[in-house]
């Protein structure tokens, strides 16, 4: 009987599922996903630790470059461009200067197909075909390489859907329909490209899982604080994941047994308990001072949707009396107003580290709404990255170890809020995504541990018989 067939130097297919959570795929009570399960049983699998921060940008770029956010100089979807108070830029493909797997594969003459991978707009030439991500303004933009692929895709699969529209709607049935439409559109495009183009490396990322989690977690997780039994969407997660598995099966059949296959996600997800108002806390503690008081701070109990507190604007701040300010999102960023660095900085450089340490300690100690420790995680970029490029936040904060979102708006009576400023959002990200690999070497369902997101790129290159660059920070997963 022939032994397991090594697939080194063969074709590689990567199926990326943004935000796919280990609990739904691996268990303890996984959904019924026969195609994904078969891959895991033939190959190997495990939880994949995301980067810091565990956010779509820069997580996919970290995964595909084998380098951490510090080396990429990318700490989220928007990053400071300079030390002014408002200079921010969206981190699209132009922000990623390090070579990613498809760049390296292209340069050695192998053909690539890249579909919907975050941070690929604006498009850069590849030795093959590339369809960019939701950072393309719309489908009138040049979101494919080569240019002509746009019309070709339109003829083959109809209008290409970059992302779910009107995500913050309360019309949940319509939202769920649009998430399904996104998934099917993506897989239709993938199947078309897989059939019609010669490829050695094929990668697609499906964003619907992330949109599903954020839009529907409270309906599906009995432990979510807003869960109501017998709601009409209680099986939304199960139904979606199982439909996804069917589409994955189509890709696997087309790819064939000779292809090494990976199914990965960039981070996981969990129930969101609420939001912690970072800038409001900084104001309350005296670290941030506004020019004028009274902006919604004395409203009645709670904040209604009709009267949302304003987002913090640089023009509202009295910088001469402000030591730090923050930015919200799935994680919190804190920036220190440093003399000689920021235009009106007041924290002297000689005191910067001690102040940063003090602030980090104070943030870590913020208790929850009932007075119990929240377990906030506070990171200094210099402590977690190999090197720090660009302008990182001075502190990175995971409130409640990512149980709580960071909210940047001001004028809240309490630092805890249970309504998102921009609309319903039920989930936050979590540290671990998924990793499944069947490379034809007969691993028979081996579970792997301590997998890191930066290990994926060198693994992919090794599968294709390409020596990973020495500056990649991960190691091939074996």
């Amino acid at each position, binding site marked *: 009987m022939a032994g397991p067939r090594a697939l080194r130097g063969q074709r590689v297919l990567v199926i990326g599922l943004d935000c796919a959570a280990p609990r739904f795929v691996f268990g303890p009570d996984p959904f019924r996903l026969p195609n994904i399960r078969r891959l895991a049983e033939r190959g190997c699998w495990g939880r994949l630790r995301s980067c810091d921060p565990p956010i779509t940008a820069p997580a996919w770029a970290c995964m595909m470059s084998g380098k951490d956010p510090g080396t990429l100089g990318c700490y989220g979807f928007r990053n400071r461009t300079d030390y002014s108070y408002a200079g921010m830029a969206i981190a699209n493909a132009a922000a990623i200067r390090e070579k990613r797997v498809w760049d390296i594969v292209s340069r050695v003459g192998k053909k690539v197909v890249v579909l919907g991978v975050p941070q690929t707009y604006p498009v850069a*030439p590849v030795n093959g075909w590339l369809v960019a991500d939701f950072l393309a303004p719309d489908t009138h933009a040049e979101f494919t390489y080569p240019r002509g692929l746009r019309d070709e895709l339109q003829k083959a699969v109809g209008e290409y859907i970059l992302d779910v529209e009107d995500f913050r709607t309360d019309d949940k049935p319509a939202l769920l329909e649009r998430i399904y439409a996104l998934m099917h559109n993506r897989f239709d495009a993938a199947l078309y490209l897989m059939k019609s183009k010669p490829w050695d490396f094929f990668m697609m990322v499906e964003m619907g899982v992330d*949109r599903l989690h954020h839009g529907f977690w409270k309906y599906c997780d009995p432990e979510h604080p807003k869960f109501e039994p017998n709601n009409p969407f209680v099986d939304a997660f199960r139904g979606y994941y199982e439909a996804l598995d069917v589409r994955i099966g189509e890709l696997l059949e087309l790819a064939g047994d000779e292809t090494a296959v990976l199914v990965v996600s960039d981070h996981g997800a969990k129930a969101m308990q609420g939001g912690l108002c970072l800038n409001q806390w900084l104001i309350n503690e005296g670290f941030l001072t506004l020019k004028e008081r009274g902006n919604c701070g004395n409203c009645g109990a709670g904040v209604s949707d009709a009267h949302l507190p304003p987002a913090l604007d640089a023009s509202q701040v009295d910088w001469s009396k402000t030591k730090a300010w923050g930015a919200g999102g*799935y994680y919190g960023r804190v920036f220190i107003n440093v003399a000689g660095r920021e235009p009106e900085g007041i924290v002297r450089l000689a005191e910067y580290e001690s102040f940063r340490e003090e602030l980090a300690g104070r943030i870590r100690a913020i208790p929850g709404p009932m007075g119990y420790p929240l377990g906030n995680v506070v990171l200094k970029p210099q402590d977690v990255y190999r090197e720090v490029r660009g302008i990182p936040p001075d502190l990175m904060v995971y409130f409640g170890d990512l149980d709580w979102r960071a909210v940047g708006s001001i004028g809240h009576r309490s630092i805890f809020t249970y309504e998102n400023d921009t609309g319903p959002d039920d989930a936050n990200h979590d540290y671990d995504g998924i990793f499944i690999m069947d490379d034809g070497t007969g691993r028979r369902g081996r579970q792997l541990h301590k997998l890191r997101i930066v290990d994926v790129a060198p693994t992919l290159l090794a599968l294709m018989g390409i020596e990973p660059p020495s500056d990649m920070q991960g190691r091939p997963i074996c």
Partner: protein
Amino acid sequence: MRQTVCLQLKGANAGEVAGILACRLVEFQCRAKLERPSSAAECNLRIATAPAAQAAENLAVELDAHDTPDFAAEKVIDILAENGVISLPAADYTPEEEEKIRRRLQDLGYIE
């Protein structure tokens, strides 16, 4: 004043790559004229550069047989840019596009 650069392409698909290049170079305000190929694997393009270009006179590029013709053409464009024949545009959003993306990211919860 326009300069003339003679670009010699050698390798598989030279003719096809030259054709793609001739179309692409219009975007960089260049006019390219295909010259009669001297062999199946060689093709010359005579490029009249944009007025502001400060270019080298002649360039020869060896094409990689494993590249798609489009990718090969893009590699040549990079070489032309490195040699001052063309200037690559910055890939920035317009203010309207940036606002559209900012709102999309805000709507999706990534930023505020």
